């Protein structure tokens, strides 16, 4: 951000978003689109963090409450919440987050390893942290968020 010229050279673009007071980010290549929150149809016999399914142009899209998934209290979605539609493997999934805040271009070296203090749950999904302008942003690995969901749900 501060030195875009250099960072773009070997940088990686990330999309930052907020859940409560915390900031997270995912690889921007995984993000297909961002849309406003729409009420989802609840799915029976699904984990609490699966809010249900919505209609995305004819496809049935499951909505994951990322807040609940990461161990925070479940979101209470308002019209200001957004759904980040992301591609994970062959599946397309909607992630419910509070707001999308930034697009970051960072070099690989600015991603620090996850500090030990993080909870087990967070450790499973957070691939590293970034310090940008005094903010801490956790990088989330999507491929880790979802298979875990599947096995847990199947159990």
């Amino acid at each position, binding site marked *: 951000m501060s030195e875009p010229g250099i960072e773009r050279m070997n940088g990686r673009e990330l999309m930052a978003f907020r859940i409560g007071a915390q900031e997270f980010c995912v690889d921007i290549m995984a993000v297909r689109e961002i849309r406003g929150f729409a009420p989802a*149809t609840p799915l029976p*016999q699904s984990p609490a963090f699966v809010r249900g*399914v919505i209609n995305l142009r004819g*496809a*049935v899209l499951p909505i994951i409450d990322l807040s609940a998934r990461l161990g925070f209290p479940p979101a209470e979605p308002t019209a200001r919440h957004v759904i980040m539609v992301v591609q994970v493997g062959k599946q397309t999934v909607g992630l419910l987050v509070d707001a999308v805040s930034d697009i970051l271009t960072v070099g690989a070296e600015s991603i620090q390893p996850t500090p030990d203090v993080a909870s087990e749950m967070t450790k499973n999904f957070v691939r590293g942290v970034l310090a940008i302008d005094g903010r801490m942003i956790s990088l989330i690995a999507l491929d880790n968020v979802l298979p875990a969901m599947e096995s847990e749900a199947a159990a």
Partner: protein
Amino acid sequence: MDPMAAIKQTFFQECEEQLAELEAGLLAMEGGDSDSETVNAVFRAVHSIKGGAGAFSLDDLVRFAHVFETALDHVRAGRLAATPDVLKIKLRAADVLADLVRAARDGTTVDEARCKSLADELRALDPNGGEEKEDDLSTLNFQPVVVRFEGLDDDDDDDAEDEDTAAPIVVPSAGARLYNIHFRPRPSLYAKANETALLFRDLKDLGKIKVKCDASGLPLLTELDPEGAYLGWQIELLTDRDEDAIRDVFEFVAWDCDLEIKDADEAEADAPMNDASESADVDQQVAALLELVRASAADEPAETAAPAKSGGKKKSKPAVAAPSAAPKEEPPPMAEVVPLPAKQTAQPASAKAAAAADDLKAAPTIRVDLDRVDRLINLVGELVINQAMLSQRVLEAGLARASAVAMGLDELEQLTREIQDSVMAIRAQPVKSVFQRMPRLVREIAAMTGKSVRLVTDGEGTEVDKTVIERLTDPLTHMIRNAIDHGVESPEKRIAAGKAEEGLVRLSAQHRSGRIVIEVSDDGAGINRPRVKEIAVEKGLIAADAVLSDEETDNLIFLPGFSTAQEVSDISGRGVGMDVVKRSIQALGGRIAISSRPGQGSTFTMSLPLTLAVLDGMVVTVAQQTLVVPLTAIVETLQPKATDVHGMGGNARVISIRNKFTPLIDVGRELSYRNTPADPLASVALLVETEGGGRSALLVDAIQGQRQVVIKSLEANYRHVHGIAAATILGDGRVALIVDVDAVVANSHAEADAQDNALAAVG
């Protein structure tokens, strides 16, 4: 995919089509159709397979196809009558050919002995005493070769000399005959990558040849279609081989050219004269052509149009180029847009053949990835929903129904529905592709069981969704097997019963009220009800003293673990029974019914949805959620009365429907939408029939109505949810879940069991 594999794949796809055509043609011939076009179509099918197989060096296939083709050729040439016996052998040969094609495609092996015995049978059909010349195969030369134009393009005088160096010349013996060959390729010949020069070279191997080009059909350059075919050739061949050997050379282009082979003795009268005049023509034409080129280079292109009309013979200036230049300029690289009248009148003989070729191409098709079609279907589904939403919003906004906007929307609605229907129709295919496999099955099973059976199919053109077709093959195969193995009696029994020796199995399809109805019927003995009952009792499926109606008895055969064959035969008794058939039909959203009359046969009737993409459902409300229950499962709906509902311990309840107690299943609790049991009196019960034939009543809050819904997969982006079959999108754009009735019922039983076990453990 590498290009070769892609071509090969196309070849195998085409093979399937050719095989289908082959079988259809043979069956038509069996049915008494002796039309030469049918015979030709059959021959052509085998021929094309052979040609393609040769290109891919599939030697086994080529060898068999060749023998087969030879046998067919005898029929085509009228040397062999198409008697039923002959046709039976040919049908079996078609089966072997199909096996060989599939083996080549899948890299598997085939039953060599069967191939060989059939090949022998085919050879035995040869009216000349079965002396199939093995060396006939040598004419199948697909190896890429370097084309030596010089040898062919040289002037006539040099020909012999040139040949000496080009190839070991076959010295015609004293008994050699002179043939006049008139050969005129059509554009399709070149389009199929054939090369006339190669044909001449092959001819040259037969003896001494003289080739003269007939360029009389050559249009002026301005009218020349670069991909047309304008040249013809007069070939004089002195050879001791017979006419068949010459025809063999043209074997692979026979459909794409006009070919006339005359014994010179008969043709003598006109041919030489033609030769002379034609070579003169060539001179003139070439001259005209050259002049035209010069003219157009100098003048406005428009001006060249005038001389072009009169061109040809009038403008004969001394030839600048050697006449031999004409044959060299083989038209394929550069020729015609508008078919020239001259060319058409010049080939009246080819008109019929061309018409036949047109027939073959009657319905042009394209191959499209299913993914693309499905994407289109999805998008159109979305369009329909969007359109409905828009209409609703417009009404909500208070616009009058007669307003221009509302009227425009009405039109849009009609349009979108039409688009939806058309798009759905893309996936629809005639059931022919499944029906076509059945004659072979019937032949094989009839042979195995020693029964004589005729299959009659009807309504092959009935269209249904491709997925339905794909999933129809297994149940249908099984039912036909059953019909022959269990239904049709042995010839002796049939004669004793006063029936025709040959059993009849009918397979028919038709559209009926938005569904496809497929019937498999036989004129056999019908269901042996006492025996069926006996077995059901034996296997503990029913109580020994059970009183069953005829219909109920017939339906016993759909019970899992039922097989009536006295001994397990290797045809039907494969451990899969009619229960599997019933289940696969139900999985397709269909139903199956039997009607049987002792001594007269049985009829199985399947009713299937036309597409798996849409489903007729009942839209219901459960705990503020909108759910869809497939209509096929619902028997009736009713409003429970207080006197009908009884507790059965725990949370289990039953409802009495016409004095039959049926478990009452609370859908809201089953799908964990709520924890408190629903009040049956404020709810609606849907009486449903499940897979096993059992009945249960599903308790829902309210019924919204019946609707056709588009089925959307949950698994695509999520995973399977127990109790939910799929999802759909309602008119308001929201997702509604489709209830998996069987799973919900089964789940409620499991829960009850778990509860019992828990209680037992405590006690």
